[in-house]
């Protein structure tokens, strides 16, 4: 009995050590470029915030700073309560164009109301107010929602701080499909495998991921329900099965199958039934991605002799060529507003993230790296997450569509790759 207790204690200690190891495996974010003009905003500590084990206003400040669009005006350790209109002229004199005031109020049962109010110091007006009920365990999620509120009021676009990202970490022979908050915190492993995992794709509900796993020694497409951990094979035909892409309706997937020869595009139901071919060529058709209205599927193909991007009506029909410059344009990803297209182009420097305005066909290269892959838009269309390389290791990076804001997300001593930015959660 004594021996057993000791064993359990040792085990508990070892588990703690492992938890520490897991914490090290978290994505760390470096900001490597910021907007040309950053909006000066003051976010003092919230009144009574000390009752919570961790600061919520810290989370708000970190989110806004990381976005590269704001500079934070430090007011020292004064708290400006939400209930009192602050001295806006004085705050303007200290350089703040906007100020967020906040208070934390205990409401019993270990729960709290976080009340906050945003002011424009130039117009001397209130921009909005809100109250969120929270528990200490939810302090980060609450902070992200407040940051989303500030971001939207000040930029006119929704924030992306409450979203999640999926990516694959390769550490030695081990592959892990992980899901983390957009700031890299709270990483959770959805699948661990000794065989490769590629091409995660978020369902519009933010609850399911489709991906390709090689666990049966060939590529097979799975749909994985994140809350339950249940997974289902949706495409395991003879040959290779790959490149899943959710339709905006969340009921269908575009996939690439080789059951009839080379890699070709099919649409099937989310349970794997009803596979239907939507395009045909004598060569490669792959990397499907739906336009946000569901009308088109963009894809890469060598049907014209070199790898180029095309689009085809999602109900099937004739394909139209989209890219014409260069001889390697792949991985098309339409923006959430459907007006532009992110993709990977091979330039004289190497493989880089480019964005094309679909109306004017004007293309801009956004990065100065040379091994970029897998671009993925933030739900507000402002940032593009992609995989690249830094110091010989696979890292993730994000760049704004105006190429000014840059971030790098890396995990110590492991390769990170295959990022996919999840949808905006519904509250």
């Amino acid at each position, binding site marked *: 009995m004594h021996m057993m207790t000791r064993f359990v204690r040792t085990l508990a200690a070892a588990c703690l050590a492992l*938890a520490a190891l897991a914490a090290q495996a978290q994505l760390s974010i470096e900001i490597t470029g910021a907007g040309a003009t950053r909006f000066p905003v003051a976010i003092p500590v919230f009144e009574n915030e000390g009752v919570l084990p961790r600061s919520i206003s810290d989370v708000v400040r970190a989110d806004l700073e990381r976005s590269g669009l704001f500079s934070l005006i430090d007011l020292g350790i004064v708290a400006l309560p939400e209930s009192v209109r602050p001295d806006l002229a004085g705050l303007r004199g200290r350089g703040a164009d906007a100020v967020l005031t906040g208070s934390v109020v205990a409401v019993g049962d270990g729960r709290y109301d976080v009340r906050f109010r945003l002011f424009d110091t130039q117009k001397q007006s209130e921009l909005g107010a809100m109250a969120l009920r929270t528990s200490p365990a939810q302090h980060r999620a609450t902070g992200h929602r407040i940051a989303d509120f500030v971001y939207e009021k000040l930029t006119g676009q929704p924030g992306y701080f409450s979203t999640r990202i999926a990516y694959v970490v390769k550490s030695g022979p081990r592959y892990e499909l992980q899901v983390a908050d957009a700031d890299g915190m709270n990483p959770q492993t959805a*699948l*661990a495998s000794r065989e490769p995992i*590629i091409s995660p794709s978020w369902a519009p509900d933010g609850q399911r991921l489709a991906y390709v796993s090689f666990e*049966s020694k060939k590529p097979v497409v799975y749909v994985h329900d994140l809350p339950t951990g249940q997974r289902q094979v949706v495409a395991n035909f003879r040959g290779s099965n790959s490149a899943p892409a959710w339709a905006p309706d969340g009921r269908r997937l575009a996939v690439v199958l*080789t059951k009839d020869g080379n890699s070709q595009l099919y649409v099937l139901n989310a349970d794997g039934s009803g596979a239907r071919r939507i395009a045909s060529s004598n060569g490669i058709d792959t*990397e499907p991605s739906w336009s946000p209205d569901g009308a088109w599927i963009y894809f890469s193909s060598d049907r014209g002799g070199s790898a180029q991007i095309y689009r085809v009506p999602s109900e099937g029909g004739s394909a139209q060529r989209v890219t014409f410059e260069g001889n390697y344009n792949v991985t098309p990803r339409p923006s959430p507003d459907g007006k532009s297209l992110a993709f990977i182009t091979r330039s004289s420097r190497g493989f880089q993230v480019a964005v094309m305005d679909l109306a004017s066909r004007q293309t801009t290269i956004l990065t100065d790296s040379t091994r970029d*892959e897998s671009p993925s838009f933030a739900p507000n269309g402002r940032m593009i997450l992609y995989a690249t390389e830094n110091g010989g290791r696979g890292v993730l990076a994000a760049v704004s569509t105006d190429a000014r804001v840059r971030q790098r997300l890396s995990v110590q001593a492991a390769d990170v790759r295959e990022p996919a930015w999840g949808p905006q959660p519904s509250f």
Partner: protein
Amino acid sequence: MKKYLLPALLSALLVACGSAGGPGTGAAVEDRTAPGAGVATVTASEMPGSGIAALTDPNNILSRRGIYFDFDSFVIKPEFQPLVDAHARFLVQNPQMRMLVQGNTDERGSREYNLALGQKRAEAVKQALMLLGAREAQIESVSLGEEKPRCTERSESCFAENRRSDMLYSGEF
């Protein structure tokens, strides 16, 4: 001894911690480390018929399984025709044998596009074998793309090593 014990201990711990609410609590984690999960395999030694031993005899051409390709190409070069001929003959003479052709690429470019390129290399080998009499049902062509490189250095010789289709018989994959 210690060296071998440590990984075993660690994986035992991972299992124990998983149930004790260790890292990743709340996320359902599935471990797919079992080799060949989901693949029905038949070992070559159980197969009836003649000439099976030839597959592993280093003096027999059938022990060679790799067909190498040029950059951005899926054309089987003349130097590999005798190897394709030998395996086609073996498949014709041993109709119960099944083959998996795995296509591979070097690491440059998009993973999914490379998966499709690797498929072209696997399909080219399958078509060449069928042209010589092997049956469609005997051969499955799949791609590993750039995901399972045999050589991991970033050099031209290494890239060339990875631009390859492998012919594997039942029980070998």
